[in-house]
């Protein structure tokens, strides 16, 4: 089993408040790993650290067995193997096609390749017909699908999904979840998903981790996590008895 991502004793503080207190986790290549936990517990921080958008105060982020630091020479190369879809769809002031092509332009891909890959990615999320429309004119769900296509077109080895379907209608939620599963199946990519929606974690993840008090309290295969959790905190969280 190849370990794709690992967090080793990762700590992070914001304005003096300790958010992560030594997070340890290993995520095998090709796995969909779900991160659940109460609000404000640091789930998004874990994703941002893994995506090298932030630097841990202590501890290390490992990618394929090697520690990578934000700002290091290899970090750009590393970041280009990953992509994140954030909670709120953020599109560039450009057409749908140009949004999807953005990452490919950054990488110096030829115009011909860009056209082929961007149109295929738009087809993947059912937005091929809208390619020439301004992205800002799309609905929230459609903009999130653009964001998915914009990330998927880069064929990242690791895909981070941060509450990527919250506030979306059920049809778009289903479409994006199906797209995530298809993307993993077709590329073998590792997917880390942060979600408040336990049903979504159940539907998508191979393993789930509960983040609490700045560390993973329990990490287990999805079925075990939901049906037979080992920790009382997990049982309390799943049953809604945990006050936070």
């Amino acid at each position, binding site marked *: 089993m190849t370990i794709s991502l690992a967090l080793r004793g990762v700590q992070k503080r914001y304005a003096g408040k300790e958010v992560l207190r030594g997070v340890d986790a290993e995520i095998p290549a090709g796995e969909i790993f779900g991160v659940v936990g109460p609000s404000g517990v640091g789930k998004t921080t874990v994703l941002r650290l893994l995506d090298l958008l932030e630097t841990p105060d202590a501890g290390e982020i490992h990618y394929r067995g090697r520690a990578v630091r934000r700002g290091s020479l290899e970090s750009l190369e590393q970041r280009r193997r990953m992509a994140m879809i954030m909670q709120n769809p953020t599109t560039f002031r450009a057409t749908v096609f140009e949004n999807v092509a953005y990452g490919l332009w950054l990488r110096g891909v030829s115009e011909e390749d860009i056209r082929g890959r961007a149109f295929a990615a738009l087809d993947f999320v059912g937005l091929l017909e809208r390619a020439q429309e301004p992205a800002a004119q799309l609905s929230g769900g459609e903009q999130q699908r653009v964001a998915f296509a914009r*990330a998927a077109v880069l064929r990242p080895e690791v895909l981070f999904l941060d509450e990527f379907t919250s506030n979306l209608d059920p049809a778009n939620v289903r479409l994006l979840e199906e797209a995530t599963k298809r993307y993993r199946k077709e590329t073998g990519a590792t997917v880390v998903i942060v979600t408040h929606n336990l049903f979504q974690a159940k539907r998508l993840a191979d393993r789930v981790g509960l983040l609490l008090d700045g560390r993973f309290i329990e990490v287990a295969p999805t079925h075990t996590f939901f049906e037979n959790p080992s920790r009382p905190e997990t049982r309390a969280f799943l049953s809604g008895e945990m006050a936070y």
Partner: protein
Amino acid sequence: MIDWSAVAQIVALTLLVAGTSTLIGAVLGVPAGAFVALKKFRGRNFVRTLAFTFYGFPPVLAGLLVYLVLSRSGPLGFLGWLFTPIGMIVAQSLLVVPIVMGVTISAVMAVEKRLHDTALTLGADERQWRATAIHEARIGVLTAVMVGFGRAVSEVGAVLIVGGNIAGQTRVLTTVIVLETSAAHYLEATIFGVILFILAFAIFAVLQRLQREGAV
């Protein structure tokens, strides 16, 4: 009786002085504003506050400063720019640059907040991110230039002091309105006022059209 050839010359000089000041404001203010918005450095907040403070910089004070610098006994007196259109452009640029810079800072920072992480997670390096941010802020940057032009074309204190309102040489629409009003030539002053308004309206209409075209 209005001398229309003199009016045409005043209009042309008004456009030349305000237009050149705006151009200088854009050339200096846009990159400076983008730099302040995108680069974290010591004293960044101070520079931002300074730029915003200069929004309200009194034109007469700018005129006085430029007058002292360009006067015969001043450090740049040897240039002979006092009471010339060049001196007026220098004075107006002093007013326009901080405005263009300040509005650009706001426009680019708004983009930074919204899109920085998205661009980075899609693989942008710092240089590519800066280009993206300026491109995304293009509507705001054009607004900055429009506000700068508005400041320049409507300004009277600085050009009056530095230019001297010399007929046929440094007389612009705002200074001729002051002159005609002080001479109780209200009809002439009003006509010049209407011309100034139409001129500004026409230029802003063109700039607004450009803004709409850039707003994909």
